[in-house]
């Protein structure tokens, strides 16, 4: 059952702030990876670009269209992975995914920073995919940045 408290935790200030003033929104002229992801059921879209140098995400930009959850999550994600080693970024992705699936330990992980504001999304199962869209794009982009599969 959804309560008003859960609703206001879903739409708290920090989330609406990222929705209205997204961080790292725009386009990179040069990018190691350029990924376009779309949620066909709801139409949410994200284009994510990464510049990866020596295993570090030196720059990141996203563009997108969609609900406050998908766009805020993408904005928070970019703020966190910018300047981070790829391995750390993937670690954030997996902890955030765990949080979306209701893992209380992940929800308490301070390294998730602003993303923790999204913990309430776990109570809205149909919206979890919105929150994960940016991270799906991140994982795809990291693969792309790593170059073609060497077949090992």
């Amino acid at each position: 059952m959804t309560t008003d408290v859960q609703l206001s935790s879903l739409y708290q200030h920090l989330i609406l702030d990222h929705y209205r003033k997204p961080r790292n929104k725009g386009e990179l002229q040069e990018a190691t990876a350029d990924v376009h992801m779309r949620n066909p059921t709801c139409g949410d879209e994200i284009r994510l670009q990464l510049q990866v140098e020596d295993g570090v995400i030196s720059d990141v930009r996203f563009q997108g269209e969609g609900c406050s959850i998908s766009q805020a999550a993408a904005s928070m994600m970019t703020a966190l992975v910018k300047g981070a080693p790829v391995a750390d970024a993937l670690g954030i992705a997996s902890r955030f995914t765990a949080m979306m699936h209701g893992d209380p330990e992940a929800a308490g992980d301070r390294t998730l920073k602003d993303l923790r504001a999204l913990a309430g999304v776990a109570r809205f199962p149909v919206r979890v995919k919105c929150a994960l869209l940016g991270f799906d794009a991140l994982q795809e982009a990291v693969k792309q940045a790593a170059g073609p599969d060497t077949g090992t």
Partner: protein
Amino acid sequence: MGNPDRVDALASTAISSPASGQVANPRPDPVPPLDPVPPLDVERLRKDFPALHQEVNGHPLVYLDNAATSQKPVQVLDAIRGYYEADNANVHRGIHELSRRATEAYEGARQRVARFLGVEDPAEVIWTRGTTEGINLVAASWGSANLGPGDEILLSDMEHHSNLVPWQLIARRTGAALRFLDVTDQGTLRLEQVDEILAGGRVRLAALTQVSNALGTLNPIREIADRVHAAGALLLVDGAQGAAHAPVDVHALGADFYAFSGHKLCGPTGIGVLWGRRELLEAMPPYMGGGEMISLVERDMSTWAPLPHTFEAGTPNIAGAIGMAAAVDYLEGVGPAAILAHEQSLVAYALAQLRELPGIRLFGPEEASDRAGVVSFLLGDAHPHDISTILDAEGVAIRAGHHCTQLLMRRYGVAATARASFYLYNTREEVDRLVRSLETVRTLFA
């Protein structure tokens, strides 16, 4: 004939005074009843729909997603259950008693739906899985036999993907081209383009929706049909919303093909009907091959069973057909004209309140009498998905998204809208609940 000034006239009326939009308007089709219809006894009707009586997230359910699918009355549920409990057998195959009864119920259902459509010959009524399959059937079968390079199919920007993608597929296969009627700011078809496009002499078929699922617009199908026929082309009507929300008589509409779904008109999912004029259907090649649709089978070739079986390969959805017949029985018992009038009074009631909400953007015709029970809107910078989540938390079910009409969304420069859609069992109190929940949206997105 189309009045080219109409759009501008409407637009300027809208700016000066939304309430006085009585300009020379081509009558939406089907013609709203001239005699006032008695109001529905909604409280009594609601008792027939078990799914309406539940709590969602601690609030009594307000179901306003009827354009997606309707709830089902006990009369329909009982018909399906009764068939499975007493008469279940395959049709047209057995000599035994149950098979006889199942066949009788199945063919009886066909006759029932034929009457619902104003059709005399039940063999023109073909069971499908729904509107989508009916349109695909015509596109693939009629299209492969009748379309070639240089030919055109006339569609519009308000078509559901079901009445767009099948034509894209057959156009690619045959070399035919697609032409589109624009949609005005008021959510109506730009009728003057009908003549312009038909004047090219290349249109073989027009495929248009009777009622827009995204805007509610009632299209002047009869008027378009006359022009299409004068140009020697055919008209397929997408009746997915029309059959559910407006009185239907396929001959009065001027349709050559009419496709609709059971689930939108209080019937079960997985069943629908394609109606077509006999001489057109008889000239069309089969769509799918298999049992039921053959007459004589040899190693290399077979001959086809007569209509309607030519287009009904395989064991059909017998229970679905029986449920759909029970649904049209139910609707006719209530009265399609009265249902439309009820929906329009809810739309008028809703629009009056929604127009007062700061930040609201409404889509579709100004006047409730120009639409069926659909209200599409945006509110401030709240994304429709967010609106829908907030409403759901208060027990109000609406639809958010592109409504399978991406061309229309693009036309209005939006990715999605929120849509409330009404049916015979909805009430003014439910509209009030919708508006109150939209106040919650405004508070949360303040």
